[in-house]
């Protein structure tokens, strides 16, 4: 199981490698929820230090197709190890350009059953990332019968909403406030009227607005069970300090460090949906 970590700058590459990172995930202009706006300019340098996945996770509109083609060609020229996408269009264009075997399809909500894995194995892409809204039991069922590479986004603040609308910008327009510094600002939080103690990170970028869970996800125990079946384990970085991110990575390599991590950050993390069943319809009995 490879540890995939998001790279913020060139200076930290050795640090991440020493922590046990196997793959650098690098933002591109086709990424949303970016942690770096310019690191894509240094791909050839990063490639010298280790495996590189490119992040292209925005929803692809007609006007994005030419930029997508350009970036897939860059991925091919640079012999990139993987391309992480949220929109299946990236897979379609990757086949045209000859990098289909680099595609990791990570749509967030859609890869929820064993059949998806089988379907995409027939398409000959590199792999798929299992949805983060299903239980550990469901993940294991898919994983034990996997047909293609499988990955999991198993740590950090996980998004639960992706809108094309610029909701923060529009809010300040509604309030007639001349607010600057809205895009790519990591400091906004939401509370809901009846949940005043839950702070949901909200983030606006060129792709729209993203809302995240109030608690970050950790999978230290679950990874022990999943490790034989997972090819990539993604550690999300957005809204984490550098130190907390480094602590996170190390904790998946060292069980003692994991215990220390939980003790240090306990209140901030939970287990997501590993042990929670969602209702299919309102009022359904389980």
């Amino acid at each position, binding site marked *: 199981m490879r540890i995939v970590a998001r790279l913020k700058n060139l200076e930290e590459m050795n640090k991440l490698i020493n922590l046990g990172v196997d793959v650098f995930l690098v933002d591109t202009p086709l990424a949303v929820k970016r942690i770096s706006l310019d690191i894509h300019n240094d791909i050839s340098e990063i490639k010298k230090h280790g495996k590189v996945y490119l992040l292209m996770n925005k*929803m*692809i*509109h*007609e*006007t*994005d*197709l030419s930029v997508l083609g350009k970036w897939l060609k860059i991925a091919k020229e640079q012999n990139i190890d993987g391309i992480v996408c949220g*929109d*299946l*269009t990236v897979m*379609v*264009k990757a086949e045209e350009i000859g990098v289909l075997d680099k595609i990791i399809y990570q*749509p*967030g*909500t*859609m890869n*929820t*059953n*064993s*059949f*998806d894995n089988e*379907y995409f194995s027939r398409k000959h892409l590199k792999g798929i990332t299992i*949805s983060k*809204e299903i239980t550990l039991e*469901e993940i294991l*069922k*898919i994983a034990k019968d996997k047909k293609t590479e499988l990955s999991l986004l198993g740590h950090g603040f996980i998004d*639960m*909403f*992706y*809108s*094309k*609308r*610029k*909701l923060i910008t*529009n*809010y300040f*327009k*509604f309030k007639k406030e001349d607010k600057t510094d809205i895009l790519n*600002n990591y*400091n*906004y*939080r*939401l*509370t*809901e*009227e*009846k*949940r*005043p103690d839950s702070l949901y990170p*909200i983030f606006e970028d060129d792709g729209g607005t993203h*809302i995240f*869970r109030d608690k970050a996800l950790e999978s230290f125990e679950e990874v022990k069970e999943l490790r034989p079946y997972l090819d990539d384990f993604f550690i999300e970085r957005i809204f984490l300090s550098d130190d907390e991110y480094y602590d996170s990575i190390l904790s998946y390599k060292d069980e003692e460090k994991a215990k220390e991590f939980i003790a240090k950050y306990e209140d901030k993390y939970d287990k997501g949906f590993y042990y*929670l*069943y*969602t*209702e*299919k*319809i*309102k009022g359904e009995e389980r």
Partner: protein
Amino acid sequence: MKTELLAPAGNLEKAKIALLYGADAVYIGGKQFSLRARASNFGLDTIKDIVDYAHGMNKKVYVTMNIVFHDDDIFGLDDYLLYLKKINVDAIICSSMVVIERAKELTDLEIHLSTQFSLSNSALANYFYKEGVKRVVLARELSMEEIKEVQENSLTDLEVFIHGGMCVSYSGRCTLSNYTVLRDANRGGCAHTCRWLYDLYENGKLLSENHDFQMSSKDLEATAYIKELLDAKISSLKIEGRMKSIHYIATVVSAYRMLIDDYYNGCMRDLTFYQNEIQKAENRQTSYGFFAGDTTIEQQLYNQRSEIPTKEFVGMVMGYDDENKYLILEQRNYFSPGDTLEIFTPDKTTIQFKVKEIYDEEFNSIDAARHPLQKIYLKCLVKAPKYSMIRKVENE
């Protein structure tokens, strides 16, 4: 090929009303595999009933199977698909690969890709065409210009939403409901968490007032874009709202039917005519979504009531007593002698009349129609057809 007008139907009555009032096709969800399973009254027999009814009018029925499937959900899928084929459903609307693949393997059902997939470009539309998908329902986030570009470059038929509620998120990419109330938004459990009231903070400082950070979207109303959509030869124009009332469905379907027919007949009226018709039943604030490009505050609801008053729907015509000239109504809302009512027929005729006397089923004169679903008789010289809607115009 004329562009299709596609309407929602939450039950058999709504489906019939939608077809009678001008829809070319209806989409329904069964009790399984549909995001609106909660709203569905369509058991297997009822699906057959509406298919037979629609085909008798030379119209179509599509069945939604658009949940995001978990392994446990797949049980029964094959039998369901085979049944839909057996009763000659015209298409299924789905978003999971497992449905597409099983439908292809077992049947020759026409396959439409649901807007749950948020398909936004022609490259992906063409991929699905090669995968056996006949039509894709475009994401609601596309501008008119984008829709035209996708249409020019796509092999699939395109379906575009023109009216009704809108997810504020890309459809299929929201799990707010999952996280906040453990109801799976992509398996029919959406709690509309995006419509709740929020506060916004920056670096711990409260920026909003009285929970006025709201994400709610106004409903879509695309009358101003119908001409361009028809010029572009989009295959299907879709109305949202399987939970809406029969009055809403009749009114909205009828307005768009007139607009589309007027376009083809070269006699389009001022748009305010169609918009005023829609307003008789549309009880939510509307805007034009993404048709003009990225949304602004015009498309959002902030501290505003989304409900607005409409013409009151007071009853539906169930028959006519030719001999004694009585309309036979099924009551839906209160009215009394002296009220002016408007009859709104499936063929778009409207007739106003004043209520003189109201009689119950035993022909006792009553002072008001106050009981929902009560059968009542009204003296009326106009023979309105069955399923005509009766609205209150003014209350004297």
